[in-house]
């Protein structure tokens, strides 16, 4: 449908457009993506050095260590979620756009996850082997991370929008977001513990899935509202 020479795009096209744009931008600054990943690997590798190389203990600690490291690593990249667009004025243009701001925000969240969450999930099996995890718990850990890391990006986006352009935003962001991410951490590590002790993982993973769906529905709306507050 053409309205005054302007082609109206569907929401899905818009979403794809935003995701593609953010991915292109991220690929042009690959160092940022790698920094997050390297940080994740280093933090996880520090733990055996700190607590000793005993395999039994490491195996028990592995899910918690990997999850906490993923949590911290995703905090690291959250500051960049809106700040570049904020500084060069793109964000203002996005808010003026006739399309729904929530949808634009959702696109940015998904792109952020693909850039900072997905690499962690892909790296996790290698690190799990370092901790002598066996195949089944490792599989559950990966499924948990796959369900949980998008939630971290989405909850994190609320914090990133609220602290946009503030001094000391990075530390403040972690202070705001980390407590809200605790349920994800609990269910993610709980699933691995359940499978290790021979219980069903269905409840933990379904709860993670439920949190993911809840976040998908509500966090784009809240983040859009937060951006409006921060930009006025």
């Amino acid at each position, binding site marked *: 449908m053409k309205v005054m020479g302007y082609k109206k795009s569907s929401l899905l096209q818009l979403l794809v457009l935003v995701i593609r744009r953010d991915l292109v931008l991220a690929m042009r600054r690959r160092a940022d993506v790698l920094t997050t990943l390297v940080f994740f690997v280093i933090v996880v590798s520090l733990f055996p050095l700190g607590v000793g190389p005993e395999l039994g203990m490491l195996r028990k600690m592995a899910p918690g260590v990997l999850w906490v490291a993923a949590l911290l690593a995703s905090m690291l990249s959250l500051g960049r979620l809106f700040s570049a667009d904020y500084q060069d004025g793109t964000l203002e243009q996005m808010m003026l756009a006739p399309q729904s701001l929530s949808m634009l925000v959702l696109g940015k969240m998904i792109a952020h996850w693909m850039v900072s969450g997905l690499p962690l999930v892909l790296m996790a099996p290698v690190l799990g082997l370092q901790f002598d995890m066996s195949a089944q718990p490792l599989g559950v850990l990966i499924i948990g991370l796959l369900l949980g890391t998008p939630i971290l990006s989405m909850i994190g986006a*609320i914090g990133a929008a609220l*602290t946009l352009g503030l001094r000391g935003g990075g530390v*403040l962001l972690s*202070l705001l977001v980390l407590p809200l991410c*605790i*349920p994800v951490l609990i269910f993610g590590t709980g699933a691995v513990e359940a499978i290790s002790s021979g219980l069903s993982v269905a409840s933990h993973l379904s*709860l993670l899935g439920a949190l993911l769906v809840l976040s998908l529905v509500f966090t784009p709306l*809240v983040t859009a509202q937060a951006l409006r507050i*921060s930009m006025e």
Partner: protein
Amino acid sequence: MAINWFKYSSPTTFYGLAGKMIPWFAVSAAILFAIGLYIGFVVAPVDAQQGEFYRIIFIHVPASMMSMFLYMVMAAYAALGLVFNTRLSGMMASALAPTGALFTLISLWTGALWGKPMWGTWWMWDARMTSELILLFLYLGFIALHASIDDSRRADRAAALLAIVGSVNVPIIYFSVKWWNTLHQGATIKFTGTSMQIAMQQAMFTMLLACWLYSIAVVLARVRSIILSRERNTVWINELPEVKQ
């Protein structure tokens, strides 16, 4: 008769009203604290299982209840402020936060003091203690976010959104932590009668009421200070007798 509910949502009118209410709440809080402590320490009998140590519940339980309740009140004011765009709501929310954080800290502290003789450890990673700790983090996040934004209107609105997100998250956090680990003793006061001795109940409810009144008095005093500092450039502030002298 139609009541104008918004009359006292203006800082100008509320400032005077709060000033008149503070002494009443403060004095009755002090009296009730005295009565509650007297019943708690003198009248209430020694507990069969826990000896004298149990008397810490007279501050521990009211503090825990207030810490959770004040967060909800804070979130409610925050929501009001976002919906109706009233200045006073944001001020009330930021006035409530330090008192809520204080009660959370008292609750954690007295819990630790109680845990040492009862469980033999200062800290247990059980559901209620952990979620109380997380509640403290939420309060601190609210205060920190508010403090780091210079424009007070933006600070109010941003912190309000955080408080609302936090209040949605509180039940999720509570249940997740509960399923994660439960060791705390079950709730003693239930809506269907209690297993407590009558003097203990009296002491506890008197202390709870005292904490309530104390919170109201302190929050009103704090909101008056906030009004004074935010509206310092207005005419009505400069005409107040206490400002003039």
